[in-house]
């Protein structure tokens, strides 16, 4: 009887071996899949039991912090002035994960960054609760507030970006309409759900959905628009780089026919250009001149200059990733004509539009835009400062040509509505009024303004876009009328710094 008993013993051994092999598979081979499954609450519980780091402005103002709740999830994220800073901070939600900077710098904020490892180990031995590191931003609250309030009180949708031309630091990044990330950070599941639905539902498909204009879309970096006349800065820069001067004679007719078609391309208002030099054309934003200039330059030269402004760069991260701006196909001369005045398939993000002015202000060299000034350890010692960096390493235009273009922008500003009261700021600017939509003549245009100041020692560059004719959907809206005031107020706030 012992033989069968021994065999039964072997069977028991085999069963345990199977269990062990299977446990190895689950706990060693497949472990990561199970650990990282979004339905595994353990990771979240762990994350929420740690004090997440703060997001602070350049001067130390708290934009996001964690507060102890005493609940099952120990810490709750709070955003003082959430709506104003939502495009900057993003959100951090139990149900919906994270977005914006909260997502991009999650490793540091959550305390998982390898640079925090030594500290984590020492916390383990000293028994302190592990905490996340902090992120200090380049944001200047005064500039952010000025831009936000200027847009908000006029009831506009759109975006404002302010940069420091010589470093690429983002001083303000405003997007409207905005949302309150506190709602998503709530630990009340239904509250999160309602807020998410309100801002993300499909008005045509979902029941009970009201029009919301995508408040969670960061228009400054995630949305691109036809840049309209602000793109003439790029066309002019390309012309100057390819031998033109401010006195080069350009087309001044009221209208030109797009090559190979019968479609006319007319100046704004349908009048001939008041002057016939390049400088006059930019000062008065004459479409025909720039359409022809682009046609003469050709796609390659235009693209080459645009590239060193950052247009076409598809891996830009600030550290959130920025939707690439582009020129489109530029396959025919007609397309080139239209691209020369920032229409057709030219698409820029508001950030990219601000980089146009910033590059000219920085003597032709584009600086890499960035939002994070430095990463801080939980005890506020600096883990890693972010150094200013050139965007492509090659100037978009020469120092001399940058000065020529600057002078043209000064003239342009003088021709822009409402410039008078701000003349002490020494602004150089370009406005834009961009047609869009399937039926451009019946759709209120986007109003653009890009500028820097002061022109003799640039400290700030901005871009403003007011979507679709602003609050009233004005068909006759222009960049000068709607956007310029907001840009000037933003720069004023930036220049007041330290005074």
């Amino acid at each position, binding site marked *: 009887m012992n033989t069968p008993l021994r065999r039964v013993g072997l069977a028991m051994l085999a069963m345990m071996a199977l269990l062990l092999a299977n446990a190895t598979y689950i706990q060693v081979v497949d472990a990561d899949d199970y*650990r990282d499954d979004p339905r595994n609450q353990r990771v979240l519980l762990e994350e929420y039991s740690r004090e997440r780091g703060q997001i602070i402005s350049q001067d130390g103002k708290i934009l996001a912090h964690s507060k102890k709740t005493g609940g099952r999830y120990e810490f709750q994220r709070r955003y003082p002035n959430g709506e104003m800073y939502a495009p900057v901070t993003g959100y951090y939600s139990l149900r919906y994960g994270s977005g914006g900077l909260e997502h991009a710098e999650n490793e540091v904020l959550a305390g998982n960054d390898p640079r925090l490892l030594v500290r984590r180990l020492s916390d383990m031995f000293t028994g302190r609760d592990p905490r996340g590191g902090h992120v200090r931003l380049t944001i200047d609250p005064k500039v952010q507030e000025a831009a936000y309030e200027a847009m908000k009180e006029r009831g506009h949708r759109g975006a404002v970006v302010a940069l420091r031309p010589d470093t690429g630091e983002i001083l303000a990044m405003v997007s409207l309409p905005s949302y309150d990330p506190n709602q998503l950070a709530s630990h009340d599941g239904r509250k999160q759900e309602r807020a998410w639905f309100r801002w993300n539902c499909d008005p045509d498909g979902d029941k009970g959905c009201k029009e919301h204009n995508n408040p969670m879309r960061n228009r400054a970096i995630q949305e691109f628009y036809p840049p309209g006349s602000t793109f003439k800065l790029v066309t002019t820069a390309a012309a100057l780089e390819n031998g033109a001067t401010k006195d080069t004679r350009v087309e001044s007719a009221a209208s030109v026919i797009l090559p190979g078609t019968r479609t006319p391309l007319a100046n704004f208002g349908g009048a001939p250009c008041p002057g016939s030099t390049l400088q006059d054309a930019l000062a008065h934003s004459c479409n025909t001149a720039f359409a022809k200039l682009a046609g003469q330059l050709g796609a390659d030269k235009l693209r080459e200059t645009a590239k060193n402004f950052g247009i076409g760069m598809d891996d830009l991260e600030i550290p959130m990733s920025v939707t690439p701006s582009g020129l489109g196909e530029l396959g025919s001369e007609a397309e080139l004509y239209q691209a020369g005045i920032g229409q057709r398939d030219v698409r820029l993000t508001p950030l990219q539009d601000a980089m146009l002015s910033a590059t000219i202000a920085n003597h032709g060299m584009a600086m890499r835009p960035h939002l994070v000034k430095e990463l801080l350890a939980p005890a506020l010692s600096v883990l890693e400062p972010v150094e200013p960096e050139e965007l492509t390493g090659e100037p978009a235009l020469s120092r001399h040509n940058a000065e020529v273009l600057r002078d043209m922008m000064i003239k342009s500003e003088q021709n822009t509505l409402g410039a008078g009261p701000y003349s002490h700021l020494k602004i150089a600017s370009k406005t834009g009024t961009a047609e869009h939509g399937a039926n451009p003549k019946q759709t209120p245009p986007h109003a653009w303004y890009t500028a820097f100041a002061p022109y003799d020692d640039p400290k700030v560059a901005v871009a403003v876009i007011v979507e679709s004719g602003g609050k009233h959907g004005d068909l006759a809206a222009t960049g000068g009328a709607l956007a310029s005031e907001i840009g000037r107020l933003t720069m004023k706030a930036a220049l007041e710094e330290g005074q």
Partner: protein
Amino acid sequence: MSRPVGLAGGKSDGSATNPGIGPFGKPATRRGTEAWMLGFAAVIMTAALVLVEANQEQELTLAIVWYGLAYFGVFLIAHLAVRRWAPYADPLILPCVAVLNGIGLVMVYRIDLALAAKAEQAGHTYTGDAPKQVMWTAIALALFLAVLILIKDHRTLTRYGYTCGLIGLVALALPAVLPRSLSEVNGAKVWIKFGFFSIQPGEFAKILLMIFFAAFLVSKRDLFMSAGKRVLGMELPRARDMGPIVIAAGVCLAIFVLQKDLGPALLFFGVVLVLLYVATERFIWVLVGLTMFGVGCVVAYSLFAHVQQRVANWIDPLATYDDPGGGYQIAQGLFGLGTGGVFGTGLGSGRPETVPSANTDFITAAVGEELGFVGLAAVLMIYLLLSMRGMRGALAVRDTFGKLLGGGLAFAIALQVFIIVGGVTKLIPMTGITTPFLSYGGSSLLANYILVALLLRISDAARRPRKPTQPRQQQPAIAEQHTVMVQAPESPGGKS
């Protein structure tokens, strides 16, 4: 592995060549080893408790002292009882049980803390299971002592074979026929309620029926092996010899299936198969059994929706995650195991309470989460050790009934662990059953302590020197009682 087991059989046979025997031919009792090992188990248990408290940031309360003392007391008494009433018993069985029971207590206590914290946040109150588990352990000790004291010789059980079988059947069937108010807890109609506590008679029926089957098979063994017709090269026993066992097994399986209690059904079926195989020494029975099992599975799958659901949950618990009765629980268990990884989160640092029924069916998921693969593997090895030591006793004991019962009991432990741990780790479809000694639950604990007492009794019989001393030792192992053949001297522990 079969070799050392075989050697062990020889060693405890009491032959003069055995090195484990003292100068006067009396084998060492090895109770000292057992005491040391129990002390080691107590150290593990205490360290585990302290770790839980530290990681849960609890103050070291009197509660742990109380738990520690209760644990210590239980195993001190058990050890003294073994010294007194089964001095030659295997020295590793009790320490294995002690470690498992200790880990179980710690995990149940640890999950209590988590559930209490969760309830507090939700504004409820939660009464812990750990104090009840300690109480059950104490009662289990009493039963353990009763078995050791009352059953001086396991062979006396053969006389009560049919009685055991009858009581077992009745106990198994009782919850099914009692009204729901007296037999249903959490939707499972397998209980008998006695006022303030309830028991699952099925757990005890399992042991009683095993005694019956072993006794029955031993008494009819000759008939099975000789008198019968040959069909297709296989000797079939006569129907009247097989009748009782087929009827009993059929009734039991029917009850389990009707109660939708698939885990115990599987366990019971496997154990009966093994008993049949060991008694007849015909491997064909295993094949016949497995074929029947396969057919049964197919039939059950096509008939019952709940079986289909279990299979779907097994194939991909993440896919059926949101279905009612779907893979949620298994997926949560797997999340826990995966999060634990190789070394685990540390005792008290995980979140085992997120798995439903974390302290019963899914307690091994909790172990795997907090102690990691390493801890889970260690627990499985302890189970293997425990069942192998039981098997060793069965190999060494001289009577066929002891061999059959011991082998069956040892196999039952291993199979039960395989069924539940395999279910939790998605090796096989999940069929609810308790984890011996680990999971919370009184009936399971009581029954398993009885089982262990029987194993100790059998292993004690295996190593106890026979009464007529010197002259008999010259002789090879001679048949006793129901035996048929005399075996050649070169395998002293062999067929007897």
